């Protein structure tokens, strides 16, 4: 294993909430020591001069869709892995909403094998909570955990039958499994393509009240109280759901919540003239909701920011808005988009990496996401100030459905390391 010394780096420590200029030693794929002031070059160490750029723990991204098995033309483990490396994502936690769903140990085995041979970054698969994500029978949670499933989720399918969900939560608790749910009242959100409000009324789009999210969360919180399950809400995107989340946390339930980068940086008006690359699930919200959710990330009420990377090909997006597929690719734009929040003065860098690296790692019981001695040397070196205009054709994902196409961004990944190995290096450090 190589030994590395990162010098002259601004180290972002999300645990301590600090940014300090200093150095970081890597030995055998693990962070050996960090510090400020002078340090000695260890034996056989390669020096990497960071030129005062920022070194942070690599992003742990919960909820990445890689379209294997089923739709490899949209995204493979190879393409997703390269995109993740280019985006500073060192661990992809992949979704089971594949075709077929990843709901058996055999399918999970296939996913792990593909991931290991093709992706340069860590891949941790999640499995479906119910068979076929149909909300009727629970999957083999025990076997799937033995096969390496780190969490259980039906993704954007809500388990409508409360009894089925309650039993799955109870059984998952007995296995110590984490359940990730999509809080949404499915009756209200059926058929919706936008958030109800002035914009949806103007555009004549079928819309869902933001209240549907709170109703979904309220139900799930009651079930957590009933079952004692470990629960994570994949995306909390509305102001009205926040007090319910806060109460559940205060009551001591084992609950965390996430939000996608799109709901933090875009609002419903960005859809403008029916731009389908802005169609995500749940739909983009009002500016007031966006601001409330950004604030909740700052306070720690919302724990995790993820990309919700969802590749879609041109055919599924080049349709009238109501018919177009939902989702956006985001592995490569997660960090530059997050820098918008930093440059706007809304979240500082330790806060961002707490939500993008430390908290997701903690929630999954991983040693990564930290920049302290003993943690894996999963690192991202980046410059938050580099301006550029995003050209979607340059993305490494097979699918190019990004809402940020043509937009001005600021902040770029310079290099990414997984267990001390370089998996990405930007050709010119500019």
């Amino acid at each position, binding site marked *: 294993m190589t030994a590395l010394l990162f010098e002259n780096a601004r180290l972002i420590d999300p645990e301590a909430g600090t940014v300090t200029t200093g150095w970081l030693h890597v030995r055998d794929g693990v962070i050996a020591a960090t510090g400020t002031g002078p340090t000695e070059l260890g034996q056989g160490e390669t020096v990497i001069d960071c030129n005062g750029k920022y070194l942070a723990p690599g992003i742990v991204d919960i909820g990445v869709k890689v379209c294997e098995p089923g739709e490899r033309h949209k995204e493979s483990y190879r393409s997703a892995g390269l995109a993740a490396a280019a985006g500073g994502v060192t661990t992809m936690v992949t979704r089971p909403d594949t075709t077929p769903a990843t709901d058996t140990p055999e399918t999970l085995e296939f996913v792990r094998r593909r991931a290991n041979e093709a992706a340069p970054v860590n891949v941790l698969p999640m499995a479906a909570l119910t068979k076929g994500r149909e909300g009727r029978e629970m999957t083999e949670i025990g076997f799937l955990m033995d096969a390496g499933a780190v969490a259980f989720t039906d993704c954007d399918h809500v388990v409508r039958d409360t009894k089925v969900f309650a039993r799955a939560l109870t059984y998952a608790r007995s296995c110590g499994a984490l359940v990730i749910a999509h809080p949404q009242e499915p009756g209200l959100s059926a058929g919706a393509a936008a958030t109800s409000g002035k914009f949806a009324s103007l555009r*004549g789009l079928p819309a869902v009240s933001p209240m549907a999210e709170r109703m979904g969360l309220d139900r799930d919180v009651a079930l957590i109280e009933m079952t004692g399950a470990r629960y994570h809400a994949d995306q909390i995107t509305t102001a009205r759901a926040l007090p319910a989340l806060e109460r559940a946390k205060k009551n001591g339930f084992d609950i965390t919540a996430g939000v996608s980068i799109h709901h933090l940086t875009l609002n419903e008006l*960005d859809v403008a*003239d029916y731009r389908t690359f802005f169609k995500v699930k749940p739909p983009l919200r009002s500016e007031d909701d966006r601001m409330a959710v950004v604030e909740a990330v700052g306070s720690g009420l919302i724990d995790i920011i993820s990309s919700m990377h969802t590749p879609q090909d041109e055919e599924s997006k080049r349709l009238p808005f109501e*018919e177009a597929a939902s989702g956006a690719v985001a592995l490569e734009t997660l960090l530059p988009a997050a820098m918008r929040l930093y440059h706007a003065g809304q979240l500082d860098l330790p806060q961002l990496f707490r939500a993008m690296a430390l908290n997701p790692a903690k929630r999954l019981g991983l040693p990564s996401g930290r920049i302290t001695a003993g943690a894996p040397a999963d690192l991202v070196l980046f410059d938050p100030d580099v301006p550029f205009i995003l050209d979607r054709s340059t993305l490494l994902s097979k699918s190019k459905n990004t809402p940020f196409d043509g937009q001005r961004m600021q902040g770029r990944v310079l290099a990414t390391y997984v267990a001390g190995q370089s998996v990405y290096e930007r050709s010119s450090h500019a």
Partner: protein
Amino acid sequence: MRPNYPRTRATETLLARPPLPSYKAETGTGEHTHMSFAHRHLLGIEPLSPSDIQSILDLADTYVDLNRQPTKHSDALAGLTQINMFFEASTRTQASFELAGKRLGADVMNMAMQASSLKKGETLIDTALTLNAMHPDLLVVRHPHSGAVDLLAQKVNCAVLNAGDGRHEHPTQALLDALTIRRKKGRLHRLNIAICGDIAHSRVARSNILLLGKMESRIRLIGPPTLMPAQIAEFGVEVYDDMAEGLKDVDVVMMLRLQKERMDGGFIPSEREYFYRYGLDAEKLANAKDDAIVMHPGPMNRGVEIDGEIADDINRSVIQEQVEMGVAVRMAAMDLLAHNLRAARAGDAA
């Protein structure tokens, strides 16, 4: 504190107030200039300025005169090909566009799309590419999904007219309604206009709200709250759920069609309760001004949203005139777009 989150250009446009209308050329002057209408497509009322609207209406007035002549023909669209593409069944609107095109000398073709290629999995974009190869000049599109006509317009190289997309817009209907009102009331500003019924699912209502708002009339929306779009009051309209109160002293009563599939108890309890509370009858109409006119975009459900006697009352109902104005307005819109299309093509060739 609101930090400086970058707003997109689209955001600014949506938040911007509509421009103040000009009161010039309120009625037809007899002189028509194509210069003031600079649009490539007619996709909705939203992008039009008050003077754009005046231009279309002024030109439409002359076509009303033409249509009343024994020989109703012009060569404004001679040599041009008009394709009517209806992804949703329509008899009246399609016939109106067809007649308008033929009276102006265009070669008109109708394509009924609802059964054909969409079921075979062809995307709208493929359809557009196929169309481009046929070199149409004017494309009239109706589609069941909001925004579909915009999408098509981005991909074809001819002028596109929206003949209704989902719940979004139906611009020629709003224009023909405006022409009818202007001819009956002599103006479009400072009128009290009530739009009644199923606002939520109505593209006619959206286009009319936008148009009449731009022309500075006062708009009241009347209907059960289950059929009102979210936050509609923010469009600068007054919302009522009581007909008698809402119709008080209005100059114009616009009724909307209640779709059969909305009558099943999902949005309203029953047809008969709807007629009792929201159907237009003589008693409710008595709250409006004595000279108030009654409009309906058709086809009507007599005994559901409108009493048959009111619909047939030649002193109040202008429903037949609306159909007549429809042909004239569509002739005017296609004439203006064809003019711009020819100018653009001449510019490209030069």
